[in-house]
């Protein structure tokens, strides 16, 4: 028996090391990736001597594409604005549907919700984004073109936003539904016990109580939208100018990276500027994550 115990204790130590190694691996991976992006992305400012201001707030985009040759313009504002406006619009389109569906499947018809809506939403999640992009390109773009007859065909901010809205819908819906579900039954009972109607219970007690979780869902959705490359690039038109309205095309960070990264000379100004865009995306996702944590902690502290 003693031997068995000793063996068990030794193997316990070994397993512990294995688990810790796995945890460390993830941190190492993230740090490596962060360091790599930071290094590559900062060269625009260090090696090519552009200012951060120029990169973020000007829209003159004419970087030179030859290894070691600098002196072009790297104003990425068009891409940045393009990313922001498509994501924001996607959110605006998506939110009422996502939260509405989440409420429907948890509060209004929980049985049908569990049986049909949740699996349906899961299917939405597992449809690849290129398929959404392809759908957008072959169905949505022509539709927009036929309805509004915009000058540049249907490729537009609107098309990109709708495709993104469809993509982030399941994320926001499932996270919100989970948040709503985890609102303690006792809150609902408390409110019903005071004679509240269902809408009063949902609107005044359940949704506010779930707001932290819903916000997490929104931010996760946003992170996904900001990072989506191919689906957006299929429908946004990739025009290097600010969109004058919802129906005009523009470009965004991810489509620029996807289109040009492999195509530009390594270490050239163009290439470096694209890496700076990637770094910007990385920073945006970290900021969003930290924001989630702040919100979650803020809720706890109360």
């Amino acid at each position: 028996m003693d031997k068995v115990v000793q063996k068990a204790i030794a193997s316990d130590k070994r397993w512990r090391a294995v688990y810790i190694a796995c945890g460390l691996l993830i941190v190492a991976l993230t740090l490596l990736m962060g360091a790599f992006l930071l290094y590559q992305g900062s060269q625009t400012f260090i090696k090519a001597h552009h200012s951060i201001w120029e990169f973020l707030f000007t829209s003159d985009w004419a970087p030179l594409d030859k290894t070691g040759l600098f002196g072009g313009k790297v104003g990425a504002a068009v891409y940045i604005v393009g990313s922001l406006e498509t994501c924001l619009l996607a959110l605006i389109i998506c939110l009422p549907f996502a939260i509405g569906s989440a409420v429907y499947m948890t509060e209004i018809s929980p049985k049908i919700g569990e049986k049909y809506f949740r699996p349906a939403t899961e299917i939405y999640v597992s449809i690849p984004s290129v398929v959404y992009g392809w759908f957008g390109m072959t169905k949505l773009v022509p539709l927009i073109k036929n309805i509004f007859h915009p000058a540049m065909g249907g490729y537009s901010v609107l098309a990109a936003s709708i495709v993104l809205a469809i993509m982030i819908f399941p994320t926001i819906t499932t996270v919100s539904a989970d948040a709503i579900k985890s609102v303690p039954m006792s809150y609902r009972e408390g409110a019903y016990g005071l004679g509240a109607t269902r809408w009063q219970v949902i609107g005044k007690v359940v949704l506010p109580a779930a707001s932290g979780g819903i916000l997490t869902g929104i931010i996760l959705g946003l992170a996904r939208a900001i990072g989506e490359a191919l689906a957006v690039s299929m429908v946004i038109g990739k025009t290097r100018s600010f969109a004058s309205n919802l129906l005009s095309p523009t470009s965004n960070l991810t489509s620029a990276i996807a289109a040009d990264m492999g195509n530009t000379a390594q270490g050239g100004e163009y290439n470096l500027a694209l890496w700076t865009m990637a770094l910007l995306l990385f920073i945006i996702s970290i900021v969003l994550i930290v924001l989630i944590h702040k919100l979650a902690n803020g809720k706890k502290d109360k």
Partner: protein
Amino acid sequence: MEDKITIENLNLYYSDFHALHDVNMHIQKNEITAFIGPSGCGKSTLLRCLNRMNDLVEGCRIEGSVKLDGTDIYGGDLDVTVLRQRVGMVFQRPNPFPMSVYDNVAYGPKIHGVTDKQELDEIVETSLKQAAIWDDLKDRLNKSALGLSGGQQQRLCIARALAVKPEVLLMDEPTSALDPISTSKIEELALQLKKDYTIVIVTHNMQQAVRISDKTGFFLLGDLVEFGETDQLFSMPKDERTERYITGRFG
């Protein structure tokens, strides 16, 4: 004395589980009625019938009638939101909403259409005073209610229920999560409130029933075994099962 609530031939089923068998009971105005019995005997179930809280439970079916001042609450004559306003409820575990103390108490009046700020202020103050917690909380009205102690939370929930000016107050083991000191505060409170309200309380604690209730009902496996004056039920129970239960030879 007059009947506030009359329960007649009440049968209740959770899907195919028959949880209450033919319960008959008269609950009188301005009295405290206690429900006792071992775990799972149907105390909470019956209590929740009285303001139709069981409507929220999927698969729950009710036969027989429950009358509030003579009106069948399961008939179409009484809207369920009105019913619940007239028959308030305090739950086993304190369940304040995650909002400020003030908003918790003002919640009920607000949803019932009170919008005047001053009127709300008054209601909040009176209710908190009635619940004997005004002094504790008057300086923390805008703090979150979740930061209060268990006893304070429970009294806040009572205040919240009082704020909608109910006629009946149902309390489901309101002190089971509380320490002795908070418990005795709540008990005192119940004794005070019975002047203005009709109170029904579920308790696991027989001493508590003895201390505060006028009438007691003893339940066993879904049957109302015995119902009568508290003193009498505890001193000379009519039913042998009641006797065995209160002398502790059971469960």
